[in-house]
Structures are given as C-alpha cells and as structure tokens.
C-alpha cells in the first residue's frame, strides 16, 4: 500500500532546513545563553530522524552516506581530545582557553576551545540518537 504523503514531503523539504538552522543557532547561543552542544545535537538529530521518517532509510542513506556510529565516535574523540589538548599545553585536564582574534569579515571575534568540546558533544548526540532510531527501525 502506498500512502499519499505529498504534503508531508513538501513541508519536510523546507522544515528540515529550519530545524537544522535552529539546531546550529542553539549550539552557538549555548556559549553564553541557554543552549549548547547537547540540545543543539538533539535538535539536529531530530531533523535527520524526520528525513528518515518521511523518506525511506535507503534514500536518505544515499544522500547522507555516513556511518552514524562513527560520527558518535568522532564526537567523543573531539570532546575528550579537547580535554587532553590542555594537558599537552601543560594546563590541568579539561582547561579551556579563549582569545580575541581580528578576523577579516567578522571583525574582532572571541574564539574559544570550549566550542571544540561542545561540537564533540553535539556530534556524539547526533550519532547516538540516529543510531538508536535506525536500530529500532531495522528490527521491525
């Protein structure tokens, strides 16, 4: 049986981008405001889950040919690695640093290593959530 899901598919095409943008926004705003890697990652992965729901798994896999288990591993590596990085500089484990840089377009911008840690968290969340959803769906 084929379900007529034209509306869902059309809406998804636009909504996915809104969700992804919102996820990135949450991720970035987490630096000084509510938000951060964890919920940013959750929102990002909800976009992926929506894609999987609307299209079938094979189609999405063609478009996003990543192994999400490895994405989770890369995420943990980044998060732990940013902690170990401070050890290499002779600081306490997990010490974060930041500084102000004069970038071409952005002007004077604050860059900090905590973003790397948060990016790791976000990737881990995306990887784990999508892996869980895919694993459940494969069983049925």
């Amino acid at each position, binding site marked *: 049986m084929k379900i007529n899901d034209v509306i869902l598919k059309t809406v998804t095409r636009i909504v996915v981008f809104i969700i992804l943008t919102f996820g990135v926004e949450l991720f970035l705003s987490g630096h000084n405001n509510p938000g951060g890697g964890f919920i940013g990652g959750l929102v990002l992965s909800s976009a992926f889950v929506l894609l999987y729901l609307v299209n079938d798994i094979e189609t999405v896999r063609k478009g996003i040919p990543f192994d999400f*288990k*490895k994405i989770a*591993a890369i995420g*943990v*590596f980044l998060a*732990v*690695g940013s*902690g*170990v990085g*401070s*050890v290499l500089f*002779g*600081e*306490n*484990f*997990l*010490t*974060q640093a930041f500084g102000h840089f004069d970038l071409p377009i952005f002007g004077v911008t604050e860059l900090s290593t905590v973003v790397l840690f948060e990016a790791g968290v976000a990737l881990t969340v995306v990887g784990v959530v999508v892996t869980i959803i895919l694993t459940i769906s494969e069983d049925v």
Partner: protein
Amino acid sequence: MMNNIIVMPMIIPLMTGIILIFLRTRVNSQRILSILSSIATIAVSLVILNRIQHEGILRLDFGGWLPPYGILFVADSFSMLLVVTTSIVTGILLIYAFSSIGKQHENMFFYPFIFFLVAGVNGSFLTGDLFNMFVCFEVMLLSSYVLITMGGRRIQLVESIKYVTINVLSSWFFLIGIAYLYGTVGTLNMAHLSVRVAEVGQGPLLTVISLMFLIVFSLKAGLLLYFWLPGSYSAPPTVVAALFGALLTKVGIYAMFRIFTLIFYHETAITHTAIGIMAILTMIGGSIGALAYNDIRKIVSYNVVIAVGFILAGLAMSSEVAFQGAIYYLIHDMIVKALLFLIAGTMIYLTGKAKIEEMSGLIRNYPMLGWLFFITMLSLTGIPPLSGFISKVFLGQGAIETGSYLLLAVAFMSGIFVLYSLLRIFLNCFWGETIISEDDDVPLKKGMLVPCVLLAIMTVAIGIGVEGLVPYVSDAARTLMNPDIYIEAVLQGNR
C-alpha cells in the same frame, strides 16, 4: 601543582576504546593496540602509586576549578592499588580474549567496550566527586550491558533483562540519594561532604540518606542483595564473566568503603552494624549457594558473593588492621576470581559440559589446568604461601581487636565452605576416570593457558612478596581510618 597524570588511567582506556571503533574490521591492529594500551595504563598507574608514597595524596582539579566548586580526581593509595590491579587483570584477560572470544565479537566492538568498561571502573576509583562517581558508574554499567548481551544467546538475553533492570533501579536510587544529600548539605565534593556532615552532625536524616547509599552499593556490590548476581555472571562468555567477577562488584565495594569511612562514619552503631549483619548473611547465603549448585559457573559465581561478604566484614569492623585485611583481600580477590572464572570457562570449553557430575578425570588430559585449579583453590582458602593468607590474618586480628567474634567466626567458616565447594569441583572434574578419549581430546590453546599461568604467578608472587605491598596497603588503611588526611589533601584548609 601539575597532576595531569592521575587522569591517565581513565583517559588511556577511553581514547583506546574510541580509536578501536575505527579499526572495527582490522582485528590484528585492535589486538596490538589493546595490549599496548593496557601496558601503558599499568605503567602509568604504577608511577602514580609510587608518587603518592613520596608526595602524599594527589589531586587534579579539572579545568583549574578549585574544590569544592569543580570536579576533581583524587588518587590515594587505596584507589591506586585498585587501579593498578584492575589494569593488570584487564591486560591479562585481554590475552585470554584473543584466543577465545571469536571473530564475531571482535567485529562487533568487543574490545572498545572492554576499554570503556575499564575507563568507567578506573574513573569510579579515582573520582573525588559523588556525582562524577555516578557518571563513571554509568559508563561502566552501560559497557557491561553491551558486553553481557553481545552474542545474543537466549540465556544471555534472559539474564541481561534482570541485570539491566536491577542496575537501572539501583542507579535511580543512587541519583535520588545524591539529590537528597545535595539538598541536605549543599555539596557533592566528597571531602567537602565529609566536612559538612561532621559540622552538622550525622542526625537521623543524614543516617537515613546514608542507608540509601548502603542499599545502592549493596545492589552493585552484591552485599546481601546478590540475587541477580549468580545468574548474570554465568551467562556471558568466559572473558566477560571473569571481567565482571573480578572488577564490577569491587567497584561497589570500593564506593562503600569510601562513603562509610570518609563521609558517614559518625553513626557506626547503625550503619556499620547494618553492614556487619548484611555481610554475615551474605557469607551464609553465598556458602549455601556454592554448595547447592552442580553447575560450575553457578558455584564460581557464588564464590564471588562469599568474597563480597568477607571484604565488607572488614568494613564493619572498622579498624585499621581490619581495613588492611580487606584491602589485601580486594587485591587478592580481583586476581584469583579472574583466574577462577577463566579456569571454569576453560573447563566448559574443553568438555562442552557445565555440570560437575558430567566431567571426570580432566587432570589426565590437562594436568597443567588441574594444578592451576588446585593453586586457585588453596589461594582462595588462604593457605600460607599464597595471596589469600595475609588478608585473613589481618582480618582475624582486626576482628579480635574490635571484639567482633561473630563476624570472625562466620568469615572463617565461609573459608571452609569455599574450600569445600571448590574441592567438590576438583574431586568430581579433575580426579577419577577420564571421560575424554584420546581422539576427541580438544587441544588446550596456549592463549588460554598463558593468562591463567600469569594470574597464578601473581597470586604466588603477592603471597611470597607481600613485604613489598605492605607500605602501600598500610598507607591506604591509614588514610581510610583518618579521613582528615584525605580532606586536607583535597581542600587544603580552604573549607
């Protein structure tokens, strides 16, 4: 003060586990990296243990946030002795895994999860923050959930449901206990908790909270609440069972020692008496279980239960000598229980049977294995040149000093039951007419024998060279007995 080295026993296994995920299909690289990483962890742990003897307790404030505000790792002799033993036992068990676990497991992230488990175990030993301990417990438990179900045999799934349910429940209690404690005294740093609890006095409310922690750790350690343990520990493959038997209950025991010597040591009449009664019941129940079953795996699992009761009898006595005995026994038990599980698993692998009455005369086919089992048996019973002896001496001395004669009697009686339960295996399985004809003689792989021999050498070495351990263990017991040493090292007067 730069002490980044003390986070290494957790970070090395964690990083190794992550890297191994990317090497999923390359089994040989996985094995080489696993062994190298284990050696590195052992080396680093030994360095830290020796540094503590010169410089006192080490601590590392994550991100430079000073206690009690930040999360920190604290390495004292007690925790580092356990970290060292964990690292060595895991390294040896990995060698056994190479020849026994099979391609299917190795391709399904078996090694990464072993390392995540070890990272969780070492993290739990090292952390100085109660919530961080909860997190490390979860890292350890999540990995153990994966390891117990991996392979997906029916018995594993049945047992894992029990195992996961009971652990999720106890983790939930743990979390609630932490919330109560934070709500009452407003801190989670263990040294700071100790100070605050001492300041306000351990009233009824705090004692009830401490009993909540007692229940949580009893579930994890298998103190009285061990009903889930024998089933869960006999379901997974040999290596995993050995890893669980050697490490997992010990983490619960460690946590109990920490909490009840550092934080809740004021109302010993309630808490420590409860621990003593539970220890006695655990030893009695474990002994009954060890004698009641004919399945080798069950007998071996019930031996874990008896050991838990024995070690926590030391905590119940709560004297420096008794602590020394308990610490010796912890170290000894991690090594010998791993050995016992390996031998039991190897016997099942060789004969394809698990009931003791179905095996016979194994010593004719596999003399080495038979004698290794004999050594294990003597060591667990506490026969002098082996590692079990010294701990029984100290524990006995501690019991007499504190007048805990009932604990003493039950603890030493349990030793006889351990001996009897293992003698039953020895007499039934190793002696008598051989059942294996020369044709279907399954060859005993070298990769299975070598780890057993290494562990047996360790139990002999600890027994004979116990002099070398004395400074570390007495320092550990002294720190447990005098919480101020720990508090001073962590807070350094800034209370």
